[in-house]
């Protein structure tokens, strides 16, 4: 049984997640789409906090809101005039998009609500503290993640070099 406060909090977060993600793909101004994406990412961060993964929520805010959305805004300002509207969708492409999305929603939603495992109450868990997270990330034992961690560092290096090479002036 959840407290009234957490239920109210849940509905605010879920509604804002749904509304802002719908608006992010339907608005015709591209800068507004980036702003609505930011709000959706914040809602996702709040979900992580509500599920006791504080570190993941902090990473979500720092990397997505602090890094990716800023990159998006810079790219939008470099490539289009702010205030421009996207051309109206043709009814053909909108029909295809709506059919694809609704079909996916129905099939996956049916699969979700017919599984009894998703209706079990939230089990008790102590939130993973920083020490556990750090030891798991940098340990090389069972269920520890040193190798992916190093692989991600190589990936980021390759990404930096690739970004510089692709975007530099010839």
């Amino acid at each position, binding site marked *: *049984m959840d407290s009234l406060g957490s239920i109210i909090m849940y509905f605010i977060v*879920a509604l804002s997640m749904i509304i802002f*993600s719908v608006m992010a793909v339907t608005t015709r101004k591209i800068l507004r789409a980036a702003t609505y994406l930011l709000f959706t990412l914040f809602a996702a961060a709040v979900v992580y906090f509500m599920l006791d993964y504080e570190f993941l929520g902090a990473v979500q805010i720092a990397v997505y809101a602090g890094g990716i959305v800023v990159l998006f805004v810079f790219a939008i300002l470099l490539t289009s005039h702010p205030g421009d509207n996207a051309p109206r969708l043709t009814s053909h492409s909108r029909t295809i998009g709506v059919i*694809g999305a609704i079909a996916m929603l129905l099939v996956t939603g049916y699969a979700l609500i017919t599984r009894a495992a998703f209706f079990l109450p939230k*089990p008790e868990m102590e939130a993973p503290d920083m020490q556990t997270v750090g030891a798991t990330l940098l340990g090389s034992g069972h269920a520890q993640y040193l190798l992916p961690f190093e692989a991600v560092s190589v990936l*980021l290096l390759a*990404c930096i070099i690739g970004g510089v090479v692709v975007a530099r002036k010839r």
Partner: protein
Amino acid sequence: MEITAVYYLIPALIMFCCGVYGFITRKNMIAMLVSLELMLNAVDINFVVFNRFLFPEQMEGMFFALFAIAIAAAETALAIAIIINIFRAAKNIDVRSLNEMKF
């Protein structure tokens, strides 16, 4: 009222479907990238919810979401570099007019 896993999975599913809709209908490359981010985020939420509700004694889902965030950041940075390069060469980023590999 009990908030179970499906209460978190349904908003994430709607978010994913919004991403699918946007990816199909949008023609601006940056708008398509925004839709892609929506989809990636919905998947991250799913990993975390499955981890928390079904296997609370492990942390696999959380770390998978963590690495997915890192890879999504790298991928977005590179995609935006490519988009800006295309804009420099072709003066627009509308996917309908980008039908040649070389300018």
